[in-house]
């Protein structure tokens, strides 16, 4: 996908698998010099605080490695639950689907501006 990495998370991940993703993704960003990462969670039927933190951490790690992360495809029921859980994922860019996420990344990277709501 050119300069972007696409990560698709599958249903019901073990905690260790989620942690390994951090390793794999940061290594891939460095190896490929990617400027953008799309994390597709449309297949996830739930995100708990552990997975939410993992996603948040990955985004922070990518940022330090000069890559922007966009979380795409969150199901409405997951969004409702996450906010009620107390986890609103501050500082994480989101988009409804992969296409819109790509557009967001392209826009952010071409502007060079930080569009994240801080």
């Amino acid at each position, binding site marked *: 996908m050119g300069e972007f990495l696409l990560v698709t998370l599958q249903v019901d991940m073990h*905690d260790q698998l989620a942690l390994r993703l951090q390793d794999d993704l940061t290594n891939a960003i460095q190896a490929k010099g990617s400027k953008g990462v799309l994390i597709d969670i449309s297949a996830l039927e739930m995100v708990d*605080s*552990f997975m939410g*933190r993992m996603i948040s951490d990955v985004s922070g790690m990518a940022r330090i490695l000069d890559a922007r992360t966009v979380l795409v495809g969150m199901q409405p029921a997951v969004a*409702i639950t996450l906010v009620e859980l107390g986890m609103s994922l501050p500082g994480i860019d989101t988009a409804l689907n992969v296409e819109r996420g790509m557009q967001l990344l392209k826009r952010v990277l071409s502007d060079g501006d930080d569009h994240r709501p801080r």
Partner: protein
Amino acid sequence: MATITGRGEQPLRSEHDIVLCRQTVRRLAQEAAFSLVDQTKFVTAASELARNALVYGRGGVLKWETLLDGIRRGIRLSFEDQGPGIPDVDQALTDGWSSGTGLGLGLTGARRLVNEFELQSTVGVGTRVTITRWK
């Protein structure tokens, strides 16, 4: 007074058991005809408490009951461990407080996602968290 229409239990001894716990709770919530949002809330609460039992309680057991109260259906889950227990229950139920490496959202977050929440803990004996959600 609610009638118990079914019950079961399964171990919480490994990370894989957390996944199995989520699957059991999802199935029960579907059978009780919970809405998709209510299913998701309940499964997420269960996931938080299952992980707590494993990480802080050094493993435990999930006991579940399906309930009928008149025409109302419900599910009650009990997460029991024989871990170190929680010295200060009020503190543990404070948002953002964490004894470990977590965010401190597990217990308080789970409480917000259910209709009934009960926490019993004795230092040196263990912890039991019981949650109930009604359709």
